[in-house]
């Protein structure tokens, strides 16, 4: 009895002295439950569950799918709450592309096991997820803003898909006018996302960047949008509201814009690729009449699509880190991305898959999206880091003021400069820059 007690004591002391073995040195075990939080929009949850359960069967582990809120800002708050209290409740998190820099301190480094695979993905994505020399997340699917157009209307009036914003403005105005004369009073030229939310930051970034006006913050976190190109881009966008776009566009998000376009009441629409499958779906009034091209550009600029999409990350506080990384590795495989592309039209993060005949057969528009992904422009999330939410809020408020007509581009960019300076002061960016 005494001997056993002594042995137990010795084992306990040994455990305290050596500490628990670091998780990353362990090979994946069996019989472990890994929890994963994946999105639940449309078919997303089903695809995630199928793939996670396949992994569980193969490795002898089990998975628990954690329900998360559908609203992405609610989901972010939930993640932050769990992670800042160092909770081990969720092992694998599905995160938005702009959260990587914000959540980086709480995410495990995946460079060793997965870095080589990320190098084979779109470069903009790989850049996004390497924060301070650590790979904090792995791209799962990619999104980028694209221009939808009504092929039938362009053919009818003899226009080609626009390459510049000027062409888009003229084409939209001409067709809107002609269609209204022909009796279609509800026809509008262009719809996009101009509600005061994250989507407007994406649109503003596309306008400014495609005019050669930069991405609001440069690599050293200096405010750069107070330049003639950016002002011209924003003035152009402001001129649309009330002329080729309805006033209501000021309250449109993705679905509201799609509602107008899909009921046949708009010539052009800026949206994410998901709208394609719905616009071409059964029962859609514009089925077979829709085309997709890269977004237009300004004079002297290049087409710029805001980079979107969702990534997978492993919590630093996970007690099953090795298994969690193994699950992530399983989910981001090219085969799995192919299955998701064919079943749910989720855009793969490997450029190589855009030449896969089966994927192209299921989604013919993927080939036209490829250049948009190649030229995707990241929102200033990397530079802003944990302050990105604040920076984005300031950008969309300034832009919304211009679109409403309450503010001129010059004074709005002036105010935005002041707001970014306030954020920079609170975040001590200048001191960081000096010490670097």
């Amino acid at each position, binding site marked *: 009895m005494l001997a056993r007690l002594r042995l137990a004591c010795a084992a306990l002391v040994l455990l305290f002295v050596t500490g628990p073995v670091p998780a990353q040195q362990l090979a994946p075990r069996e019989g472990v439950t890994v929890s994963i939080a994946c999105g639940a929009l449309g078919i997303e949850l089903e695809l995630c569950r199928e793939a996670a359960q396949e992994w569980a069967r193969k490795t002898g582990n089990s998975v628990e799918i954690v329900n998360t809120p559908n609203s992405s800002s609610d989901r972010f708050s939930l993640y932050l709450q769990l992670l*800042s209290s160092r909770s081990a409740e969720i092992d694998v998190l599905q995160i938005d592309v702009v959260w990587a820099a914000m*959540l980086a301190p709480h995410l495990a480094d995946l460079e060793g096991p997965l870095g080589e695979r990320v190098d084979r993905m779109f470069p903009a994505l790989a850049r996004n997820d390497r924060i301070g020399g650590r790979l904090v997340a792995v791209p799962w699917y990619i999104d980028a803003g694209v221009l939808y157009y009504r092929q039938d209307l362009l053919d009818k009036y003899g226009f080609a898909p626009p390459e510049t914003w000027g062409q888009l403005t003229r084409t939209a105005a001409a067709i809107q006018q002609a269609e209204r004369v022909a009796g279609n009073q509800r026809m509008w030229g262009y719809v996009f996302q101009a509600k005061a939310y994250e989507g407007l930051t994406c649109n503003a970034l596309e306008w400014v960047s495609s005019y050669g006006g930069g991405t609001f913050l440069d690599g050293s976190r200096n405010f750069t949008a107070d330049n003639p190109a950016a002002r011209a881009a924003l003035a152009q966008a402001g001129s649309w509201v009330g002329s080729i776009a309805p006033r209501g566009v000021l309250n449109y998000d993705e679905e509201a814009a799609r509602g107008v376009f899909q009921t046949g009441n708009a010539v052009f629409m800026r949206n994410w690729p998901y709208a394609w499958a719905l616009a071409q779906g059964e029962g859609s009034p514009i089925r077979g009449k829709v085309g997709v091209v890269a977004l237009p550009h300004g004079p002297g600029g290049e087409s710029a699509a805001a980079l979107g999409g969702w990534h997978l990350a492993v919590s630093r506080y996970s007690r099953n880190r090795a298994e969690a990384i193994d699950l992530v590795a399983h989910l981001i495989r090219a085969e799995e991305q192919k299955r998701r592309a064919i079943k749910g039209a989720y855009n793969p993060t490997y450029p190589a898959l855009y030449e896969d005949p089966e994927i192209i057969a299921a989604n013919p528009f993927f080939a036209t999206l490829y250049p948009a992904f190649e030229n995707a422009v990241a929102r200033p999330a990397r530079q802003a880091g*944990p*302050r990105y939410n604040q920076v984005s*809020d300031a950008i969309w408020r300034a832009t919304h003021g211009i679109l409403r007509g309450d503010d001129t581009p010059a004074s709005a960019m002036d105010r935005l400069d002041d707001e970014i*300076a306030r954020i920079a002061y*609170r975040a001590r960016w200048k001191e960081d820059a000096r010490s670097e």
Partner: protein
Amino acid sequence: MSKISAIEKARARSAWLFVLPMLVVLALVAAWPLARTIWFSLTNATLVDPTTYDFIGFDNFLAYDEGRWYGILTDPQWLNALGNTLIFAVASVSLELVLGVIIALIVNAALPGRGLMRAAMLVPWAIPTVVSAKIWQWMLNDQFGVVNAMLEGAGLIDGPVAWLGGSSLAMVSIVMVDVWKTTPFVALLVLAALQTLPKEIYEAARVDGIHPVKVFFRVTLPLIKPALVVAVIFRLLDAMRMFDLVYVMTGSSEETMTLSVFARQALVSFQDVGYGSAASTGLFAIIALLTVIYIMTLRPLGRDSGA
């Protein structure tokens, strides 16, 4: 002599014993969180990593660096929120006071069905604020709201009005909903005061043939003044903290953002615990100041009614 003082001592001891639990509870639920908030307002803490932060003095309130002023006191958004809060507080409280007194006078009169009226009057007050905010948000919707449909049906407006979409109309709508919701509270307080008034004064006034309007301004109003002052204090402090109605109806939109909505945005949406705490501390200071001013002006009044 010594006996009495011993009794007094024992009384004082037991009095402290009775007060102690309340003091402990107050320290736990009020003093401690308040002290924490004030402490955090002097730091640069964030929610991303709440354990590491630096003490930065009053930088969150006011700071000067390389030709620019920083801190909430120079932040256009915070000042805008302060302006919104003051406009909201003054507009809603004055409307509620006027309407509350009118309703109380009506309900106080000996009309048939008075009991039912008194009960029905309380319905807006009894509905949880979030629920009534949501109800009004739907009713005021520009596309399918019942308010627009009714006004259009009556021929009062040409097209749908965006009640909550930007512009100063959003603030008008929110004041309107707050008046709808909180007037019953004011009316109830005034009604209670009206019922304690001596009937003889009114009889004397009637015998002397004095006009009812004059009676109201010369007799009723001075007598219910203490109750009105209490109602104004309660309502004003409440209105300065306004959060739920605004947040549910228009979110964090700039046109209607109050100081509490600003603080929530900084704390929760932007994870900026230091700055958000500074915003909350600023609001606390303003409310404390208002309370002190009010108590000072109340003091002579209390002496009057006591004499």
